[in-house]
Each structure stands twice: as C-alpha cells, then as structure tokens.
C-alpha cells in the first residue's frame, strides 16, 4: 500500500501513526485488520485506497441479493 511507505502524522497530536490491529463491524459481522493509528489519541487512518479495495470487497461479499 502506497500510504504505508509514507510517514503518517496525526494532525491533532503530531505523533507518527503506528500499524495496530483494528476491529470494525459491518452488517453484524466483526473483522479486524492492521491500520495506522495514533498512539496518543487512538484515531485511525483509513485510506481511500483501502476503502475502495478490500473494505468494498468485504461489503460486496456480505450483502444480500
């Protein structure tokens, strides 16, 4: 992922984001994946690329007809 090659800095805390296991739910299902997170405030960065690829793929697999 291109964003992983760059340093990501939390705008609020000015700390470098670290890859951390992150839980999310969709349509009643729980999943986890590693996402960049601020070690200070816990905000997670979800890139547009991730949304358009894997997350959208998960959505597609879980949706009914």
């Amino acid at each position, binding site marked *: 992922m291109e964003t992983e090659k760059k340093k990501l800095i939390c705008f609020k805390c000015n700390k470098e984001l670290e890859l951390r296991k992150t839980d999310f739910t969709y*349509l*009643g*299902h*729980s*999943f*986890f*994946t590693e996402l960049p997170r601020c070690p200070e405030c816990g905000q997670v960065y979800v890139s547009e690329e991730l949304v358009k690829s*894997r*997350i959208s*793929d*998960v959505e597609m*697999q*879980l949706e*009914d*007809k």
Partner: protein
Amino acid sequence: MCLRRIPAQRVQKGSKIFLRKNCSDHGPFESIIWRGLSDINEWVNGSDISIPVEPHCPDNCGLCEDHLRNTCCVLINVTDNCNLNCRFCLADQDGNSPEPAFEEIHKSILELIIKDKTLLQLSGGEPTTRKDLPEIISAAKEASAKYVQLNSNGIRLGEDKSYAGKLARAGLSFVFMQFDGTDDSVYESLRGRALLKIKQKAIENCAEHNIGVTLVPTIVRDVNTKSIGEILKYAISQSPAVRGVHFQPVSYFGRIPEKPGESDRITLDELVYEIEKQTDGIIKSADLLPSSCDHPLCGFHGDFVVDGNSLLPLLKRSEKKANCCCGDTTAAEKNREFVARRWLRPAMQPDQREKFNGDIHDMDYFLKQVKTYGFTVTAMAFQDAWNIDFSRLRHCSFHVYDKGRYVPFCAYYLTGWKG
C-alpha cells in the same frame, strides 16, 4: 389436478396452513404449504403474497404485464432423453424422444442471450446424452452468455474423465448435479440403481477442470428426509469443489408414482427446521432467508464461508423487508451475480483442500477464504397441479425459453394428475 383454473385460498388449521381449492369435477382438495414449525408471517415478512382474483395465469405464458419479476436465470431443454429411469421425473422421458436439432437450439441461444448478462441453464432430460453438448456450450459462450450451467445427473461426468475437460474447454461455468444422499439405498429407491460412487467421481472430475458443482437433492419423505444433514456435511467436506447444496422438495408433476397426500409434502419450514436439526446447528434457521427474487414460499437462500468443518453465515434474517426484483432488471442481475459468484469456482485453486489455519475474522484471510470456500444453501419448491398458486407463479424469475416465449418454470412443466 385436472388443470382447470379454480379459485384457491390459504387456510389455517391449528399451526398448519393449507392451500384449499374446489374443483367442480373433482371436488374440494387441499395441499399443505406450511407445517407451522416457524411463523409464516415472519417468513413472508410483509411481502404481498395475496392470491390474484380471476387470474388468467398460466394461459398464454410468456411473461405478460401482470408478471412481477424479470428473468434471473433462463433454461432451455436440449433433450428429452435420459440415461436413468427415475421414480420422480419432471420431464417424464421415455428415452427415445426426438431431440431438437442443434440449429434449433442455436437459434434459441441467439434469441435469448443478453450479452455478458445471461445465466443459461442447459437442461433435459439428461443433457449429456447429446453428442453435441460441448458445441451447444461453445455456441452459448460465443453468443456471450455470461454463465452456462449444466443440469445433470452426473453419470457421464463420472464415467468419462475427459468429458468434464471437454465441457470446461467449451466454456461451461458450473454444474447442478442431482445428488440425493450419501447412501446408495437412496439412489436405488429414487433412481433405480446405486449411483453414489459415480457421483463422487463426477465431483472429482469436475474439480480437476475447475468446474464448480452444486449438489441438488430431491427430498422425498421416508427416502432421504433423514439424509439432509449428511448431504450438507458431505458437501461442506468437498468444498471448494462443491459450491453448495440446492434442495428441491419433491413436487408432483411429470412422472410421479402416486397422488400426494399430506405427509408426502416437504414444506419449506420443515426443510429449514430439518437443516438446523440435522446439521447439529452448523446451519441455523436464521441463516436461511426467504426468496426475495422469487416468492417467499418458493424458496430460500443462505450464504456462507466454509471454515474447517463449520460454516460462517454471511446473511442473517432481519425485520428489514428484503429487496426484490420487482420490475427492475438491475435487481434480477444482482440476484444472478449473487448466486453465480458462489457457484462458479474461482480459477487457480490448489487441488488439495487447504488447511484452515487463519482467523476467519481477519479481513484479509476472510477475503481469501470467501472467494474460494464460499458455500450456498438454497432451495426451490416447485409447484404442481395440487399446490399451484398464481401469486407464486407471478413472482417467478426462473424461466424456460421455448420458441420465443419466456415461461415460468412451474407453468412450463405443469402436468395434471395423470401426467
């Protein structure tokens, strides 16, 4: 039962629901449609299932302005011949019928296929008894059918190892294979001979050529009603070669041994109940959703991913009204893609069953597994002269194409009680 069109009403007796009709020649009769093992109102969930007043169905089917669904899957009959002589057979073949010529089938293919959209089912009789089946599949693919499905008893596929390869090269997408049980006594009773080994070989041969196989049991009381769980467990053990199980509770059209009584019917609620019970809860009732693309009393679907010996359900029944294919071609297309993505076996899979060594809730592992080990549990309850319900017929999205007309499946194959 004599195919005269007569009024019908659904009546409740205790927890059971019957479709009651009164024929001026044959008197009153009724057919059980729900055994009360779950609440029919919750199942129907607000869908309009009212029976039409003064319907003209099924005269002149073709789809008319009163039909409520678009075509999801379309079937053509390529032969009336068969290499079995089953107790129950929708087409009642005698094995010596003249077949439609290739040119005739090709003409139908060119007429019906919508480029890169159509899911075409080749059915019979037994389509593999035709020598030119690979050419028919090629013709459908050349006409840009998106998916070509073969409905087969699997005998030829099991007997001839190279045959599955020929069909795969011609462009076959997947097979719906008659599979009534994991015990030969079931086949001897229903199909007249032991067939389990040949079916297993057919699965193996299809797997070698990456053709997904969905198992299709016809469920008949006291023959294989106790085999439902075993069929599902076997199918799960054969994933990813086997893509799912499509149950067909027995219907009484074509060739049938005798007129059905109440106990001969396997209702949808009974099937759902038995699935949960016989799989020891691997599949729960709530994981199976009523048909939305067709009528809720016509079938159900469940979508899963195999995780070792268990299944992760991807759908949950909810109070939210389901989407439907009402007058909307994109909805029918969505439904088609929903089923086809599972029935189609993705390319480049290893022959050996991989170890299930990840956590299914890990997003990347889930995405990898769901495409390979996706698994559907579906059912379609066909109608016959006793229980035909024009509300159901009007909601049908599964059509037979014949001489320029799209006919709802159950209207096409409907026969009176004398066959």
